């Protein structure tokens, strides 16, 4: 099994979840209110005040095959709006 970590702006959460549902992932977990900095050195803060929104960290445990299916969709969202996606190995307990 793989573990896919996606980190991107909360505003794109719906778009990403739709992408995940399209390939029928077995499940996902979302953690909001993440903050951070990306390669363009823009610091995203949890600035609810202005409504700009913080980052979301989405974790998906699934098969490689599903990841291959959604790769293009996810990349297209992240390349336009920013964010990162990394895959690692994971074994069910």
């Amino acid at each position, binding site marked *: 099994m793989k573990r896919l970590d996606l980190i991107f702006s909360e505003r794109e959460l719906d778009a990403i979840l739709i992408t995940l549902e399209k390939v029928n992932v077995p499940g996902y977990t979302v953690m909001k209110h993440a903050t951070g900095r990306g390669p363009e050195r823009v610091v995203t803060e949890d600035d*609810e*005040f*202005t*409504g*700009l929104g913080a980052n979301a960290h989405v974790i998906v445990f699934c098969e490689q095959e599903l990841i291959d299916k959604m790769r293009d969709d996810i990349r297209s969202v992240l390349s*336009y*709006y920013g964010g990162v996606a990394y895959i690692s190995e994971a074994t069910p307990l």
Partner: protein
Amino acid sequence: MELNPLFSNIFAPPVLFFLIGVIAVFTKSDLEIPAPLPKLFSLYLLLAIGFKGGIEIQESGILNNQVLLTLGAAILMSLIIPLIGFFVLRIKFNVFNSAAIAAAYGSISAVTFISAESFLTSQGYQFDGYMVGALALMESPAIIVGLLLVKFAAPKDRPNSRKLHFRSILHESFLNGSVFLLLGSLVIGFLTSSFGTEAAIEKMKPFTHSLFYGAECFFLLDMGIVAAQRLPSLKKAGSFLIGFAIFMPIFNAFMGVLVARFLSLDSGNALLFVVLCASASYLAVPAAMRMTVPEARSSYYISTTLGLTFPFNIVLGIPLYMSLVNKIIP
């Protein structure tokens, strides 16, 4: 003690709380108002100002020529200001940034408006409830102008998914949470005052009226913290933008006062009109722009409106505009 307006504005509790928020950041105090408490106060203020405005509009009777003209002029100003701003900003910035910043200045800041109301009350001026209508009406048009500017002036190679549809432009303009709450509360105030019982309004007052000033102070404490935190990124943005954040409001105030004179508003309403023109949005517009024009750098439009224009208006602008009004309005 009798003080001149500028001085007396600085010693009003809301401004003082704003200033200690600023000082907290400058002295590196760890004072902070954690999320979502500021949101509680901002929701509360929008709800209360809308509700009160709705009641006053109903009580004063809206179908009056001057009222309609004023509201029309308000909308017009919120269409013209971003256009002017856009052409000024294009000197230094690309289409996306120019449109986003310009839209912010066309729209309004409810807290600046509230502060102006408090200032008027403390100075003994009268003003009318329907000006809250102007406040509500000026939030959206500037967003529309901003998005249209992007739609027509932007390079043609934006990714397809990003094509702006009129539907989504309207959605962003009118259904933004803070616009919606202000408009909704306005309608509720109006309806309650028309069809509801007098008792219901009385029972709302401790919440919407009595508490208002204190909640305003608490919120301005947070605004002071947030504004001061924005200053460093404004310095990075360069002197052109810093100048814009000061002179654009003054220019807009000047236009505003001329229009107010043309409309024969009395001093109180004139000041509110001017403040609407001079203030810039750090809530509805940034949220809309970040969503629909991600190419614009959010730090530009946030740090100018929140880090400089807002403090300037709160502390110096309002008494300045008052003296302008007193000069130009007979």
